């Protein structure tokens, strides 16, 4: 009996030893490759620092062209409201319709304000006058925002100059006072929203590409056969292959969270433990997928194409840049199979809203299921015989 349990302990010890040896080999290989080190450990963070500022739907500094055909004191006042609003930058003035279109086509203006002749006279006599706004709507979203800005400016102008002349005294215009507030991020700061998501993408990129190229590289240079003839077992080999990238992935996440905290001052309302719990499951999904890609391909080139294909899909369908809610229904359903979507969602909710384990149980369960499926497939596909 004693001998039996001893032999089990012996087996476990030997197995752990083998895994440790493979681990050591992998780490040696990673750190020996001087060309790769900056790519793994520096490039992601430079991107995080730079790109987090780029992702903003704010519309600012709109180039603005003015056509004041009336040249009266009122038209000048209206034009002044536009230039003084802070949203628009006056880039030129002209007096013919053709010129306005040319300015729009040449990107020297995204908004043209046309104040027609007799603007002031109409306003004084009939109490109403029209102005034309030519808006560059290539980007429909920004065009909507620009229209919103102009609406505000004109409403302010009307109020200040008492247009329309006050409604006959005595009638009370009912008013609903709206108190607006945005929770969790009252200043509507975009970087707080983007940094957690971009961090997820970077961790995924590194994890997926490194694990995706790893086994196939050994295939290409032939060293896989050398490992195949050793008594190393399948699970030992795979554990030894994945563990280093899992550790690197968590390390990158830690550095990224530090940058989020210290540089971007992203709040952390939830718990770091929860983030790490989810991340450790999530990395299994990513690494399992990389390994699966690696086992079904023959060359690093093929592996990269497939990894790239999924990476682009995962990134654009993750709700990171455009809201999931605005996708058509079939696309929304597809995103349920996208692990990146769930991790981005969880990161944002835990960091910005302080969601707890119960709140994120559903996406976490989906991630767990993904991890199980991916790892099972990858282990199953990996054979110790070369084709």
């Amino acid at each position, binding site marked *: 009996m004693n001998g039996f349990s001893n032999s089990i302990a012996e087996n476990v010890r030997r197995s752990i030893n083998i895994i440790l040896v493979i681990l050591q080999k992998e780490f040696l290989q990673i750190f020996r490759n001087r*060309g790769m080190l900056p*790519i793994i450990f520096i*490039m*992601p963070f430079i991107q995080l620092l730079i*790109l987090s*500022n*780029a*992702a*903003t739907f*704010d*519309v*600012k500094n709109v180039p603005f062209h003015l056509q004041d055909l009336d040249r009266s004191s009122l038209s000048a006042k209206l034009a002044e409201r536009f230039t003084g609003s802070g949203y628009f930058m006056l880039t030129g003035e002209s007096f013919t319709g053709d010129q306005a*279109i040319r300015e*729009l*086509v040449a*990107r020297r203006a995204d908004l043209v304000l046309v104040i027609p002749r007799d603007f002031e006279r109409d306003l004084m006599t009939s*109490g*109403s006058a*029209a*102005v*034309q*706004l030519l808006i560059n*709507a*290539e*980007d*429909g*979203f920004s065009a909507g925002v620009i229209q919103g800005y*102009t609406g505000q400016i*004109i409403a302010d102008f009307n109020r200040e100059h008492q247009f329309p002349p006050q409604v006959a005294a005595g009638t009370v*215009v*009912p*008013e*609903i*006072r*709206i108190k607006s*507030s*945005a*929770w969790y991020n*009252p200043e509507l700061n975009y970087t707080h*929203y983007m940094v957690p998501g*971009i961090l997820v993408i970077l961790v995924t*990129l590194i994890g997926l*590409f490194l694990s995706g*190229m790893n086994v196939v590289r050994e295939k290409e240079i032939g060293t896989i056969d050398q490992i195949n003839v050793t008594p190393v077992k399948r699970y030992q080999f795979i554990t030894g292959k994945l563990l280093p990238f899992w550790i690197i992935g968590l390390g990158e996440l830690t550095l990224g969270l530090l940058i989020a905290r210290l540089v971007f001052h992203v709040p952390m309302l939830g718990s770091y433990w929860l983030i790490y719990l989810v991340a450790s499951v999530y990395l299994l999904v990513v690494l399992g997928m990389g390994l699966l890609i690696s086992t079904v391909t*023959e060359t*690093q*080139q093929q592996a*990269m*194409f497939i990894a790239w294909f999924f990476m*682009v899909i995962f990134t*654009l369908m993750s709700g990171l840049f*455009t809201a999931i*809610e*605005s996708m058509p229904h079939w*696309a929304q359903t*597809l995103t349920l199979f996208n692990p990146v979507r769930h991790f981005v*969602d969880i990161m*944002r909710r835990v960091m910005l*809203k302080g969601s707890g384990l119960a*709140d994120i149980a559903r996406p976490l369960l989906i991630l767990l299921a993904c991890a199980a499926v991916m790892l099972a497939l990858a282990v199953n596909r990996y054979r110790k015989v070369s084709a």
Partner: protein
Amino acid sequence: MTSFRAFVLKEFYHIFRDRRTAVILFGMPVLQLLLFGFAIRNEISEVKLGICDLSHDHVTRAITGKLLSTATFVARINLQSPLEIGPAFASGEINEAVVFEPGFAARLQRDGAADMQVITDGSDPNVSRIVNGYTASVIQDYLREQSGDAPPAGVVAVPVMLFNPELRSVYLFVPGLMALILMLVSALMTSISITREKESGTMEVLLVSSLRPAEIILGKVVPYMLLAFINVLTILALAFLVFGVPCRGSVVLLILESLLFIVTALSLGIFISTITDSQQAAMMISLGGLLLPTILLSGFIFPVASMPLPLQVFSNIIPAKWYLIIVRAIMLKGAGFSYFWQETLVLVFMTVILMTASVRKFSERLQ
């Protein structure tokens, strides 16, 4: 010249010998354009609205009904007290909560004013801002209906949405996807092809052959240029036929500019391969290094003009930014060459610099 031709042929064989890669090369861009063209939108819809009605009268019911009748809001969730708002936000059940004060209709009648609260989930600033605006305009509409439509007075703006009157985001995203797909496919393909020769040692064979460095590089570019060109044609055909993106300018010009962009991307790939030693490093740089910057800094989704100034300056080195300006000008604005010769020149300039640098690097190895 014959040795050069043989070299180009060899490259072709390399590409097509590997069926799987060939299928991926042609199929992937098509699949991606189709998927994203349909799925990626930035119109906000289906906002989940939570209603906390402490008054339950005809006015609050009317306003609630009006909010839910727009396409923007769905899934009314009734909240019994404002205390339920927090948990509903945390679990992601709602994006916006509206609170009516008790006795809403009565106060509106008696005092001429009533209070309501609109709370949005600021963790998504974009949705938050827009949803807030929608809510306010729905309530303005309600009040206007109640008071009877008055004739317009004061300054009235007549907006004209040029180039894209229906404000369709497909018009914005399809050109962006073209740039993204072409950039990554081209840079990836060439960066791999040269580093592979380095890794497998066949580069030494090429270097001692009668081919000059410039010829080797050209020989690498030509086959991939043809491949990418086929990709351009399929992508453009899809853009017109499936997504109905108009081409108001010259199609020939559009194709020529796309070719130029491909050459720029290919030379970027070649440059990457000359500064790296392994396929791994080359791929990590051309994918890991290009994916996010191309999405974020090209104006694909986020307007460049709104970014902080240093980023606007930095975005100038992203080739996709210039290509995107050109493509949108041709397709949507129907502009002629005189409107974007400067952008074209920038792409030419980038290509020349990258090519020269690559040939230099190459010649160095020879000595």
